[in-house]
C-alpha cells in the first residue's frame, strides 16, 4: 500500500514536471510564430520570465492554477498567431531576417 502510494506520488510529481516542461516548449514554439515583431518578442520574453519566476512553487493547488492559466494562454496565442498571419504587415527595421 505504502509502495503503491509512493509510486503514485512519484508518478504525479514527474507527470507534473513533464507537463510543465512540455507546456513551456509549446508556448515558446507558438510564440515564435507571431508575425508581429512587438508581439513575438514580448510573448517570448514574458513566457521565459514567467516560468523562471515560478520555478520554486511547491503548492500543488497554485501549480494547478498556473498550469491551467498557461493552457488558456496557449490557446490565446494560437488564435492570435492565426489572426496575425491574416493581417500581416511589413517587417520592422530592427528585424534582421524575414520571419517565417
Amino acid at each position, binding site marked *: 500500500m505504502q509502495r503503491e502510494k509512493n509510486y503514485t506520488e512519484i508518478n504525479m510529481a514527474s507527470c507534473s514536471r513533464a507537463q510543465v516542461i512540455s507546456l513551456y516548449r509549446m508556448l515558446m514554439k507558438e510564440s515564435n510564430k507571431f508575425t508581429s515583431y512587438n508581439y513575438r518578442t514580448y510573448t517570448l520574453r*514574458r513566457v521565459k520570465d514567467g516560468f523562471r519566476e515560478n520555478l520554486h512553487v511547491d503548492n500543488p493547488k497554485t501549480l494547478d492554477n498556473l498550469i491551467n492559466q498557461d493552457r488558456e494562454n496557449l490557446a490565446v496565442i494560437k488564435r*492570435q498567431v492565426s489572426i496575425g498571419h491574416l*493581417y500581416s504587415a511589413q517587417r520592422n527595421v*530592427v528585424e534582421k531576417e524575414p520571419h517565417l
Partner: protein
Amino acid sequence: MSPKALKGINRPNNLSCFTTVFRSEAGCSERTRCISSGLWALWSLVTVRADHLPSSPCTPSTALLSPRLDELRPLYMDFQATTPMDPRVLDAMLPYQVNYYGNPHSRTHAYGWESETAMEKARKQVADLIGADPRETVFTSGATESQQYCVARFYKAKKTHIITTQTEHKCVLDSCRILEAEGFEVTYLPVKNNGLIDLKQLQETIRPDTSLVSIMTVNNEIGVKQPIKEIGHLCRSKNVFFHTDAAQAVGKIPINVNDWKVDLMSISGHKISGPKGVGALYVRRRPRVRIEPLQNGGGQERGLRSGTVPTPLVVGLGAACEIAQQELEYDHKCVTVLANRLVQKIVSEIPDVVKNGDPDQRYPGKIRLSNCLFFLKWESLLMALKDVALSSGSACTSASLEPSYVLRAIGADEDLAHSSIRFGIGRFTTEEDVDYTVEKCIQQVKRLREMSPLWEMVQEGIDLKSIKWTQH
C-alpha cells in the same frame, strides 16, 4: 530631386511643399501645413507606390498607403501617444464582435443578458485596478469625454472658482477656457522647474468659492508624477472636489482612489494597450459628487451617460485593466531598465543634453530630452530619424510648429524648448529597439551638429545669447 524619385508620388504639389519648408519667408500657418506635408513627402519618397503587389492575404485598403512588402516599418517609440493593443485584449474582444453581438441593455433575451454580464465584468475589472467600487465607474468614449464631465459647472450659483495647472492636457485647458467665457474664474497654477506643483501655493490659492481642483497624475510630455495623495488630502480638508486625469498613469503606477482621496478620475483605454474609442470615468459615491449628464437619453450608465454601451470596446478595456494590474510590477521593472539604458547611452555620447522634469518623481517610461541643438529644431532631427517613430510633443499639438507649452511652463529656454524630443517606452519595447534608437539618434545629432555653424561658434566659446542678430 530625380524624376525616378518623384515617380509614384500621388499627392499634388509634393515638391513645392518640400521646398517651402526651408523658405524662411513663409507665413506661420502655411509653414504648419508645409511641415506636415514635408514630413509626409519625405515618407512617400521613401516608399514608392507599387501598382503590382504580390498576392498577400490583406493589404491596407487606402490606395495612397500601399507600400511594397519588402519596405520596412519604422520602430515605434511613441508610447505616450498610443499603445499597440495587447493580443490578450483583442482575443477577449473578438467574440463580442462576431457572435455575442447583443445590446447589453436588452432585458428580454439571452443576447442582451450575455452582453450585460460581460459589461458588468469589465466594470469590475476597471474598478479593481483603481481600488473603486464598480458602481462608481461610468464608461465613456475616452478620457477627453470623461474630462468634459469633470471640468464643468459644479454648483454654479455659489462656487465659481476652478484651479488647474499650466501643464494640463489640452482638453482640460480648453474646457477651462470655455468656462471662463461663461463667467467662472480659473487659476492656472505655475509649476516649478522640475514640473511639480508647489503644495503651499495650491493651499494659498484655494478660496471659499473654489469648486474644483484638476491636476493630472502623470504628465504626458515630461513624465512627471504629481504628489496626488497630498493634494487629495488637502482638497478633502478644504471641502473642494479633486479631479485627476490619470490617462497616462493607470496601469503604470499603483492607484487607489480611496487612499488618494480622489473624487473624479479619467481613464483612457488606448493608453493601456486597450482599444481606441473607449474610456472610463470614476465618480465618487461617498461623499457624493453630483455631475451633470452631457448626453441625455435612455438613462444608461446611472443616467450620466445615455447611449448603448459598446460591449466589445468595454470588454477590451476591462481585459486591458486586468492585464495591467497583473503585469504592473513586471512592466515597471522592464521599462525602468530600458529607460535608464537609453538615457545613459545618449548622455554619455552627446554632450549638452538636458533631461526635462524631476529625476525622482516621474514615471520612467516617458523621457523628454532637450538635445540643445542650438537653433537646430526638432523637425530636423525627427526627419533625420525617419526609421524611428518619435514625437516632440503630445499628439494633439503635433501639427503646430510652436514648442510645447509644457516646456514653457517648466521654464525651459527658447532654444531648449525648440530642440526637444520625446521618447516613449512601453510594455512591448525591447533592448534592440532602444539600442537602435540610441545609435541612430547619436549618429544623426553628431551629423547635424557638424553641419551647424552655431555649434562651431559654441565650440569656440562664444555665448550665443550675447549675439545681436541683424534683421533683414
